[in-house]
C-alpha cells in the first residue's frame, strides 16, 4: 500500500515547532522550580540593573501610570540600544569583518553558556540539593561550554548537537529575561515585536540589509540561528516543498504564482546545466515537458508546472525556497545584539549546486531557519505567563505556536525573510490578557464546583 500524503505534509513546520516547544517547556519548568521556593529569586530580590531596565527600576509599590511610563521608557531605550548594536554589526559585516563577527559570536556563546547557564545550574543544584563537588561541577561546565562554542560555526559537529546548543542558549537567555519586572517585560516584548517588523521588512532595516548582503555574497550569516535541517536524508522529494505547494494550491492567485515559479525553474535549470552535465538529461526532459505543457489549457498547465517543479527539486534535492526569519541574538547584560538571519534563495541554491556537484545530493537540502532571538522572546512570554498561572501558559503557548504557523505559511507564500516575532507576540499578549481577565473567573468558577462540559 502506498503511503498516504498525510505522512509528508507539515514535516518542516513540525521541525521548527518542536524545538520551540521544547525551549518553552524547559523555560517554564525552570521558572516554576526556581521561583517557588527561592534561593535564587531571594538573592535577586534587589532588582538587578540590566540593559533592559536602564531608565526605570520597577517596584511593586509604584502607581500604575508611573509603572507604565517607566516600562515604556525602558523598552524604548532597550530597542534603541539593540538597533545601534545591530547597525554596528551590519557595518562590520559590510566591511567584511566576518572573522571578528564569528569570534564575537563564539565569545557570546561562551559567556552565555558559562555564566548564565552556570548560575542556573548552580541554583538548580542548590534547589534540588544535588550532591556534587565544585571541581567536578567546574569540569562538567567547562566541557559543556567548550563543546557548545565549537559547535557554533564548524561543520564537523553533528547538526543535532548544534541544534541542541541553540535551544540551550535560548533557554538560558530566556530564563534570565524572566527576572525582569512584569510591566517592563510586556512593554519590552511588544517593542521588540515592532522593532522586528521594521528591521526585517522596511527598506533600510538593519536585518534586511544583513540578509541581502549575506545572500549576495553567498555566505552563511554570521549569527546565531537555529536551522531545522533534516538530520536524516528524507526518502523523497517533496518534503521541503509540500507546504509550499499546498499553499500555492489554496491561494487564488494560482496562475500568477505558478508563472513565476516556472520562470525560476528555467533559471535554475540553466545554471544547473552549466554546472554539471550529469543533470542535463533530466533537466532537458523537464524542459520538453514544460514546452509541451504550455500549449495545454490554463488549468492543466498550472497543475503540471507544479508537478514539474517538484520533480526538478527532487532531482536536485535542494528545496529552492528557504526561509528566514529575523534573528536576534541577545544577551542580557550590556550588549544586546541582534543579527539577522536567513537564507538561501534560488540563485544561491543554483550556485551551491554548482559548487557541490553531484556528490551531496542528499546533504544540501536546507531547512527553515529561525533566529535565536525568536526562541528567546517566545520563551520569555511563556515564562512570564508561568508566573501567573498554568492556564495562561497553555493559552500563550497555543497562541505563539499558531502565530509561528501563520508566519511559516506566509513565508512559503512570499518567499523572503520574514520577522517571526510580530504575529506570535501579538497573539500571545492578546491571549494572555484575555485568559487572565475573562477566562479565569469562568473556568475557576465552574471547575471548582466540579461542573464540566
Amino acid at each position, binding site marked *: 500500500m502506498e503511503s*498516504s500524503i498525510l505522512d509528508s505534509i507539515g514535516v518542516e513546520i513540525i521541525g521548527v515547532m518542536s524545538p520551540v516547544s521544547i525551549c518553552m517547556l524547559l523555560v517554564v519548568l525552570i521558572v516554576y522550580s526556581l521561583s517557588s521556593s527561592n534561593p535564587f529569586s531571594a538573592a535577586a530580590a534587589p532588582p538587578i540593573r540590566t540593559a533592559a531596565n536602564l531608565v526605570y527600576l520597577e517596584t511593586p509599590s509604584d502607581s500604575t501610570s508611573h509603572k507604565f511610563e517607566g516600562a515604556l521608557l525602558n523598552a524604548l531605550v532597550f530597542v534603541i540600544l539593540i538597533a545601534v548594536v545591530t547597525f554596528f554589526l551590519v557595518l562590520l559585516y559590510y566591511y567584511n569583518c566576518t572573522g571578528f563577527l564569528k569570534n564575537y559570536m563564539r565569545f557570546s556563546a561562551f559567556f552565555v553558556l558559562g555564566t548564565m547557564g552556570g548560575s542556573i545550574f548552580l541554583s538548580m543544584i542548590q534547589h534540588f540539593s544535588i550532591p556534587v563537588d565544585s571541581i567536578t561541577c567546574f569540569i562538567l561546565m567547562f566541557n559543556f561550554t567548550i563543546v557548545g562554542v565549537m559547535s557554533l560555526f564548524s561543520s564537523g559537529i553533528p547538526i543535532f548537537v548544534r541544534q541542541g546548543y541553540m535551544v540551550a542558549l535560548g533557554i538560558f537567555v530566556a530564563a534570565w529575561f524572566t527576572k525582569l519586572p512584569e510591566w517592563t517585560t510586556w512593554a519590552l516584548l511588544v517593542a521588540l515585536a515592532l522593532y522586528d517588523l521594521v528591521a526585517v521588512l522596511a527598506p533600510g532595516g538593519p536585518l534586511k540589509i544583513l540578509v541581502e548582503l549575506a545572500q549576495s555574497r553567498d555566505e552563511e550569516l554570521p549569527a546565531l540561528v537555529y536551522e531545522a535541517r533534516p538530520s536524516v536524508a528524507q526518502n523523497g522529494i517533496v518534503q521541503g516543498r509540500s507546504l509550499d*505547494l499546498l499553499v500555492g494550491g489554496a491561494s487564488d492567485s494560482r496562475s500568477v504564482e505558478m508563472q513565476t515559479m516556472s520562470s525560476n525553474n528555467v533559471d535554475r535549470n540553466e545554471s544547473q546545466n552549466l554546472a554539471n552535465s550529469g543533470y542535463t538529461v533530466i533537466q532537458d526532459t523537464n524542459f520538453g515537458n514544460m514546452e509541451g505543457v504550455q500549449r495545454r489549457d490554463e488549468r492543466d498547465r498550472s497543475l503540471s508546472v507544479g508537478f514539474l517543479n517538484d520533480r526538478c527539486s527532487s532531482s536536485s534535492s535542494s528545496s529552492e525556497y528557504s526561509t528566514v526569519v529575523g534573528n536576534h541574538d541577545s544577551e542580557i547584560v550590556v550588549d544586546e545584539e541582534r543579527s539577522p538571519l536567513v537564507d538561501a534563495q534560488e540563485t544561491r541554491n543554483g550556485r551551491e549546486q554548482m559548487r557541490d556537484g553531484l556528490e551531496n545530493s542528499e546533504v544540501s537540502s536546507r531547512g527553515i531557519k529561525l533566529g535565536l532571538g525568536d526562541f528567546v522572546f517566545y520563551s520569555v512570554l511563556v515564562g512570564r505567563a508561568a508566573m501567573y498561572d498554568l492556564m495562561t501558559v*497553555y493559552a500563550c503557548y497555543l497562541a505563539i505556536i499558531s502565530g509561528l504557523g501563520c508566519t511559516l505559511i506566509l513565508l512559503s507564500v512570499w518567499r523572503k525573510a520574514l520577522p517571526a516575532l510580530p504575529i506570535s507576540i501579538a497573539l500571545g499578549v492578546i491571549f494572555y490578557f484575555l485568559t487572565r481577565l475573562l477566562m479565569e473567573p*469562568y473556568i475557576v468558577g465552574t*471547575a471548582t464546583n466540579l461542573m464540566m462540559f
Partner: protein
Amino acid sequence: MTVAAGIGYALLALGPSLSLFISVISKKPFLILTVLSSTLLWLMSLIVLAGVWRAFLPLKSNTWWPFAILILTSVSFQEGLRILFWKVYKRLEDMLDAFADRLAKPRLFLTDKMLIALAGGLGHGVAHAVFFCISLLTPAFGPATFFVDKCSQLPFFLVSAIIALAFVTIHTFSMVIAFSGYAEGNKVDQYFVPAVHLVAGMVTLVNFASGGLRGWHSSPLFHGNLNLVALWENGYEKIIRNQTVIHSR
C-alpha cells in the same frame, strides 16, 4: 510524595490521550498540526463563552440552576462549533485530495479521514483536560491535598481528574462519530453526539448534591465508555464495509 500524587492525577486525566498521541498522532506531522489547531479552536470557544458570561460571574455556589444554564449554553455553542469545524475540514479534505492528485499519490484513505477526525477530537479533549483539570492541579504538587465539604471520601483533585478523563474520552471520540455521521448523513450519529455531551455535562450537576456522592462522580465516565462503544461499532462496521467494497471490485 505529593509530587508523585500530582503527576498521578495529571496522568489519570491525560494518560490515555498521551498514549494515543504518541502511538498514533506523533508519527504524522499533519495530525500534530490538526491537534494544535483544534486545541486552539477550543480555547477560543472558551474565551468567547467566558466573555459572554463574564458579566454574571461569579455565580453563587449554592444554587444549581445558573450552572445548568451555563452548561446548556456552553454545550450548544461548542456543538455549533463542531459543525463549523466539519465545514473547515471538508474544505481541507478537498485541498488535500487536489494536492494528492498533483503529486500522483493516492487520495485520502478512509482511515486517514478517521485519523484526522480523531486528531481534531483529541485536540478538543486535551484542551478540556488542560483547562479544567490540569490548571487547577498546581496545588496538588504542594504538601497537602484538598477535600470539598460535599464529598469527604475522595480528594478534590482525584474527582476532577476522573471527570476530566471522562470528558477527554467523550470529546475525542465524539468528533470521529460526528464526522462519520455528517459524511454519511446519518441522523442518529449526528444527534447522538450533542446528546451525550449535554447529558454528561448535566450529570456533573449531581456534584451539587451534598453528602458524599460516592459513585456518582464517575457517571460521565460511563458516558465516555458509551461513546467508545458506539465508536467501536460504528468504525468497525465502516471498515468492514469498506473492505467488502474493495474486495468486490
